[in-house]
C-alpha cells in the first residue's frame, strides 16, 4: 500500500525524529552543557566552535541535521503551498523548485561544515 506521497510523508516523519534527537543534542551543548558542568568555558567562543568543528562526529551530525531540517521544512512548505488549491502544473513546478532549493542549500551548508572541518584538521 505504498505510494510516492506515502514514502515522502514517511521520510518527513523520520526527518522529524532525527531533528528531535540531533537538535536536542545541539541545544544541550549550546545551552545546558555549561549548566551541567560537562563542558568547560563558553561554548560560543571562537576557539570552542573551532574545537567542535575538528571533531568528525560533530561535523557529520551537523550535516545530517542540515539534511533532515531542509527535507522536513521544505516538505512542510510544499504541503502548505499545495493546500492553496493550485493547479497540478503549478504543483509540479513548485516541487521541482523546492528540490533544487533544498539541494543547493544542502550543498552550501555541507560544504561550509566540511570545509571548516578539513581546514582545522589540516586535511
Amino acid at each position, binding site marked *: 500500500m505504498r505510494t510516492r506521497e506515502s*514514502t515522502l510523508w514517511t521520510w518527513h516523519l523520520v526527518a522529524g525524529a532525527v531533528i528531535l534527537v540531533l537538535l536536542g543534542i545541539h541545544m544541550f551543548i549550546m545551552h545546558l552543557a555549561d549548566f551541567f558542568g560537562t563542558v568547560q568555558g563558553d561554548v560560543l567562543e571562537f576557539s570552542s566552535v573551532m574545537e567542535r568543528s575538528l571533531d568528525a562526529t560533530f561535523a557529520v551530525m551537523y550535516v545530517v541535521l542540515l539534511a533532515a531540517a531542509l527535507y522536513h521544512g521544505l516538505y512542510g512548505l510544499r504541503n502548505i503551498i499545495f493546500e492553496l488549491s493550485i493547479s497540478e502544473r503549478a504543483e509540479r513546478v513548485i516541487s521541482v523548485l523546492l528540490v533544487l532549493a533544498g539541494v543547493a542549500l544542502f550543498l552550501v551548508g555541507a560544504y561550509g561544515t566540511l570545509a571548516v572541518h578539513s581546514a582545522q584538521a589540516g586535511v
Partner: protein
Amino acid sequence: MIEPVSTQGEKTDEIVKNVKFKVLRFDRDTIPSPRVDSFDVPVKKGMTVLDALQYIKENLDSTLSWRFSCRMGVCGSCGMFINGFPRLACNTQVLELEADVVDLKPLPNFDTIKDLVPDLAVLFEKHRSVRPFTLRKDIAELDNPSGEFFQTTDELQRYLQFAYCIKCGLCMAACPTVATDRRYLGPQALTQAHRYNMDSRDEGRDERKDEALGTHGVFRCHFAGACSEACPKGVDPAFAIQLMKRDALKASFGLLRKKKAAPLAPKVTSGKRMEGVPDAPKRTV
C-alpha cells in the same frame, strides 16, 4: 401495544418562546447577491430546526428552500450551518441551541444551489473516487454469487463504526483543510476508503491507494478533529484517517500484513429451521 418513544424530547403545543431565525437567502436568478431574511418563529418544546423551517415555509415565506427527506437523522439531506456549526436540521432542537437568534446558512465548503441547499456533487465525486465498494479478485463470484463471504464479529467491529456514514457532508463542511484545498479528498471519502480497506471481505486496498494516499489524500489532514465533532452518527472520520496514516507508515517499513479476502462461508448443511420462519425471497439480481 408498544408506545412510540420520542428521542427528541416530548413535544407539546405550549409555545415556550419566540426565536428569530436569520436565514441566508440566495438564488442564482432572483437573489444573485446573498441577503439575510429574518423570521419570528414561535418555538414549542421538542421543536427541531427542520420543524421551524417548515413553519416558515407554511406561514411566512413559501419561497424558502432547503433539502430534507427522512426527518430522523438517517438520510443526511438536511445538513446546514446552524449558529456557526454544521448540523442536521432534523437532529437539532431549537431550544437546545439556547439562543434567541438562530443563524441559518448553507453548508460551507460547498457551492450553494439555492438558499440552504448545498451542491453535494463534489462530495459524491470524491466518495466515488475511492471506490467505496467491495473489490475482490474472484470477479466470477461477485458477478454471480453462490453464497456469503465469511466474516467474524471481530472482523465486523473493525469497520462497523465507519460504515454508519450517511453522506450528509457535515464533516466536509467542518474540515479546515477542505476549506483551502479544494482537491483534498476530505474526511468523508477517506473514511469510506478506510472502511472498505478494513473489511475482511475486501482486497482492494492497493486499488484505492492512489487516491487515498495520493498528494491530496490522508497526508493533508491536520487532525483538527472538526469532522469528528460535526459527525451526527459518531463515525469519527478523524480517527479513520489516523488509522490510515498508521497503515501507510507500516507499509513504508514493510510491516503491513498482506490481506487475503475472506472465503465463502461454508453452507449450512444441518440444523432445523424454527417454525414460522418463511423462505428467503428469491434473488432479483
